[in-house]
Each structure stands twice: as structure tokens, then as C-alpha cells.
């Protein structure tokens, strides 16, 4: 979990390292242009070229290091950035030294490096800007000493130089440069701090969010495991009770009388109901926790309808309900056959439950080029208008269902909706009290497996 957070800021720093490399290439390009210019003017600038070559070389090295490894730890990347930045400062120092020391026009490179370090590469290590300043100050003091000893000529001073004038000139320039740099450093430091404060705050919030996300994922996984375990733990005893009862009921272990058989059949029937409720609850939890996946396969959708009707045939016959199917000629689609069968079973089962004796149920399917449209229509008791919006919610049951004593836990429709939505489709209902109910679903046609 922590690794993820580290990765984020490490990636951030890697990006900065890379930008440093690009900037250096740009500087090299600029250096070459300047060299070309002085070459045309006939000036001798071989040393500058040498410096440009040196920068190019260590920049190539930096780039090579960047590419050679996929993953970096935070410490490594900071050390790399720091190392190459020290080289940059040295290169700038050499350039300044070569082009006239105190008189060099290139002293502006130090502010540039400060800006880069302060706002870019070092970011939360803003105080490192101060190191650059310290280095610069020492460097300039050194130059001052050198100039004082007249080891290198000072350009721009008057032709007639007395030691006093010389000293004054050098001193003025040096002080000016150092003061400007210090002011500049202070400004950069201040703004860098300001910016980075917000950045720190943001990345802290970011880390917290990531952690919460991970925790949520963990909870999701725990829930899945829990569902699987509960499922297993409930199914085994259910299997034992059911089988033991049916062994007695089937007279495998001896004769029983008719009353005993009747009681046992009732018990077994209710155990089957219990099993179905258990399945519904598990399915519904799986759908809400996102654990249910659909696996599309090439399927004859007419066969799915036939299978569902076949399963519920007896139930319909008991209420003398007629089931009619209107099916398309070509019926090959890519859906999850198991899940879609459950949709049909649930919807047809509902229709049977809420239709009076001798009613009629019509199942129709239509396939168009990019849609599968199915409907299950009955002429049963219907649904009150105000109950329709909540109908597909979990554990919601119609009032009439309670009054009629129809059994159920109110999960069937929410499961249907879940499965249809996993197929990226829509399901809705049209109903009039005492006239009938029509459930309609539309699925987009997808031509893929999996």
C-alpha cells in the first residue's frame, strides 16, 4: 500500500529529473549557437566548446542512467538529481571563470540555476537553494581574491589603474553581484516554500485518499471472502438436512406412513425454498459488491427462454396459466447464458406468482441489428403506480404481494436489474393495477466472447 504512495512522488521526481536533462540539452544547444557565433567573429572559444562537450557528456550519462532502470527509489532519484545539479553549478563556475571571472556576463546562470532548483527539481528540498547561494558567494569571494592578486585581468576597468581603483572596482562588482544573488535567492526560496507547502498538502491528501481507497478495496475483498465462506458453511448443512429428510421420505431406510411422508415432503419443500433464498441473497451481495462477472458466449437465446419456461412449467400448470412465447427466427447472440436464464426465470416466476388462475403470460423476444429486446407480459394483478420507482431496489416487495401472502424476500428484480446492467442494458416496467404487468429489457448486441 505504501509502495503506491512512494511511487507517486518518485514518479514525480523522476519526471523532474528528466526535465532537468532536457533543460541541459537546451543549454548545450544554446552554447553551441554562441560558440558558432564567436567562431564566425573569429574569436577563440575552444575552451567554451570543451565545456559544452563536457556538459553534453555528463548529460548523456544522466539520460543513460534514467533509461537503464525501470524503477527507482525516492532516495536514489534525489541523489541523482543532486549530483547532476552540482555538476551544473561547477560547469557554470567554470564558464564564469573562463569568461572573465567577476566581469563575466554569465553570472546570470546562478539565478537561473536557483530558479530551476527552487521551483523544479528540488521542490520540497527548497533549502538546497541556499547551498547554491553559499557556493556562489564562496566562489565569488575566491574570484575576488584572484582578481585582487591580479592573476586574471579585469575587463572594463579604466586604462590607468591604481591599486586603490582596482580594489574599489573589484569590490563594487563583487558586492553588487553577491547582494543581487542573495536577494534573488531569498525571493526564490520564499516562493518555492509557498508553492511547495501547497504541494505537500495536496500530496498528503492524495496519500490519504489512496489509503482510503485501498482500505475500501480490502473491505470489498473481505466481503467476497465472507460471502464465499458463508455460502459454503450454509450449503453443507442444508445438503445434509435435505438429503437425510429425503432418504426417509423416499423410504430408503424403512417404511413410513402417509402422514409422516406428507410432513417430510413439506419440510423438504421448505428447505428447497431456503436454498433458493440463500442463492438470491448471495447473488444479490455479489452484484452489489461487484463480484459478479458476466461471461459472454455465443448463445441461442431462444433456448434460454425455453429452458426457463420448462423449469416453471409445472408451477404454471398448477394455476392453469398459459405461457405463450413469441421468438425470433435467428436467435444467436453473445450473452452470459446462465445469468440471462436467471433473468427469464425470475421474471416468469414473478409473472406466475402475481397472475390469477387461468391467466396468461406472453414472453416475446425481438432481435434487431444492435439490440435485443425482451418482454414478459402478464394479465395479473398489476403494480400500483407509486410502487414502481422502488420496485428494482433490494428487499422491496409490492404491498399486494404481502397481502396475497406471496413468498419472497424481494431480491429477484434487483438481481435481474444487476444482470441486465452488467450486460450494459436497461430494464423497466409498465403496469396497470388489475390489468397486468409488462417487464421490458433491452440489451445492446455485442459480438464478443468473454
Amino acid at each position: 500500500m505504501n509502495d503506491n504512495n512512494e511511487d507517486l512522488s518518485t514518479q514525480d521526481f523522476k519526471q523532474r529529473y528528466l526535465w532537468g536533462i532536457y533543460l541541459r540539452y537546451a543549454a548545450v544547444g544554446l552554447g553551441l549557437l554562441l560558440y558558432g557565433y564567436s567562431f564566425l567573429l573569429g574569436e577563440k572559444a575552444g575552451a567554451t566548446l570543451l565545456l559544452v562537450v563536457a556538459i553534453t557528456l555528463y548529460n548523456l550519462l544522466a539520460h543513460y542512467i534514467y533509461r537503464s532502470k525501470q524503477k527507482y527509489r525516492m532516495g536514489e532519484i534525489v541523489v541523482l538529481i543532486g549530483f547532476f545539479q552540482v555538476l551544473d553549478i561547477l560547469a557554470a563556475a567554470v564558464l564564469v571563470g573562463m569568461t572573465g571571472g567577476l566581469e563575466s556576463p554569465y553570472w546570470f546562470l546562478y539565478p537561473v540555476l536557483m530558479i530551476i532548483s527552487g521551483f523544479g527539481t528540488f521542490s520540497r528540498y527548497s533549502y538546497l537553494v541556499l547551498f547554491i547561494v553559499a557556493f556562489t558567494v564562496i566562489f565569488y569571494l575566491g574570484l575576488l581574491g584572484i582578481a585582487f592578486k591580479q592573476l586574471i585581468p579585469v575587463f572594463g576597468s579604466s586604462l590607468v589603474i591604481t591599486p586603490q581603483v582596482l580594489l574599489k572596482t573589484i569590490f563594487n562588482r563583487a558586492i553588487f553581484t553577491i547582494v543581487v544573488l542573495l536577494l534573488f535567492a531569498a525571493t526564490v526560496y520564499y516562493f518555492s516554500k509557498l508553492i511547495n507547502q501547497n504541494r505537500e498538502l495536496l500530496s498528503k491528501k492524495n496519500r490519504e485518499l489512496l489509503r482510503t481507497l485501498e482500505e475500501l478495496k480490502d473491505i470489498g475483498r473481505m466481503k467476497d471472502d465472507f460471502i464465499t465462506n458463508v455460502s459454503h458453511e450454509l450449503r453443507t448443512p442444508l445438503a445434509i438436512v435435505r438429503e437425510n429428510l429425503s432418504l426417509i421420505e423416499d423410504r430408503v431406510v424403512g417404511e413410513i406412513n402417509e402422514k409422516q411422508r406428507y410432513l417430510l415432503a413439506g419440510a423438504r419443500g421448505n428447505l428447497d425454498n431456503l436454498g433458493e433464498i440463500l442463492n438470491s441473497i448471495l447473488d444479490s451481495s455479489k452484484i452489489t459488491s461487484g463480484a459478479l462477472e458476466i461471461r459472454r458466449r455465443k448463445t441461442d437465446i431462444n433456448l434460454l427462454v425455453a429452458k426457463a419456461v420448462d423449469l416453471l412449467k409445472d408451477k404454471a400448470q398448477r394455476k392453469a396459466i398459459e405461457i405463450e412465447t413469441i421468438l425470433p427466427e435467428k436467435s444467436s447472440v453473445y450473452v452470459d447464458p446462465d445469468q440471462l436464464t436467471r433473468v427469464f426465470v425470475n421474471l416468469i416466476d414473478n409473472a406466475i406468482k402475481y397472475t390469477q388462475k387461468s391467466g396468461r403470460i406472453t414472453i416475446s423476444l425481438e432481435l434487431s441489428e444492435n439490440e435485443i429486446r425482451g418482454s414478459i407480459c402478464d394479465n395479473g394483478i398489476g403494480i400500483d403506480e407509486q410502487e414502481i420507482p422502488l420496485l428494482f431496489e433490494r428487499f422491496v416487495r409490492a404491498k399486494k404481494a404481502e397481502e396475497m401472502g406471496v413468498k419472497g424476500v424481494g431480491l429477484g428484480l434487483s438481481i435481474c436489474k444487476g444482470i441486465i446492467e452488467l450486460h450494459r442494458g436497461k430494464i423497466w416496467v409498465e403496469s396497470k393495477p388489475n390489468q397486468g404487468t409488462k417487464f421490458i429489457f433491452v440489451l445492446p448486441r455485442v459480438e464478443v466472447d468473454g
Partner: protein
Amino acid sequence: MDNKKPKILIIEDENNIAEALRLRLEANGYDVITSSDGVEGLHKAHTERPDLIILDIRLPKMDGYKVCRMIKFDEEYSSTTVIILTARIQPSDIAMGKEVGADEYMTKPYRSEELLAKIKQYLAAEN
């Protein structure tokens, strides 16, 4: 072969289920042997040469997938029918059952009529 009862091996650690299955199968004219862990079950599958095996997944010592694989991927025994009977209903478990070569994957709670029909069908195909 006709006058000899088909032999069925039940590998199941839940005694209640094993006993219920035994009663049901014996009442339907099968010879039944049982085993309550994976290692012993595999051993019995090798020594007793049953015609059909009813196999649980969660078993002590060796899980049902492994037992199934050791039977189905062994040329000498691969013709034995294996029916997995388990409380696991995850699609991944069912896929795993197919992968290790089981002939049938059934879930608990099972319907004995269904199980008997499958057994009959597989034994008829074997002969």
C-alpha cells in the same frame, strides 16, 4: 459385468453426507466405498478400481482438485468417471473443476434424483 454391481467411491470428509449418499446409492443397487480424506481417497481409487467417484473439494490432506487431477491425468485410471460434489458455487471453482478433468460438477445442496440420473448416465456410457 452385468451381474456385478457397479462400484462407487465417495470421497467426502463430512460424515453425514457420506452416509446419506451411501444409503441412497446402496438402495439403488450400487456397491459403495467411502473415504474421508484426499490421500486415502486417491489410494482407494487406485486399489479398489471404482467405476465412478463422487468427490468433494474441501478435503483434509489433499484437496479434491488435486485428487481429480491425479486420477484424470493418469492414463491407467483416467477412464474412471469423476463427479465433483461441492458446496463451492463460484464460477472460478467450476472452471477449475473442468480444468482438472472432472466429468461433472454438482453443487450442494444437491437433488438426489439429479445425482442418480447422472450416475446412471455415466455408468451406461462406460459399459
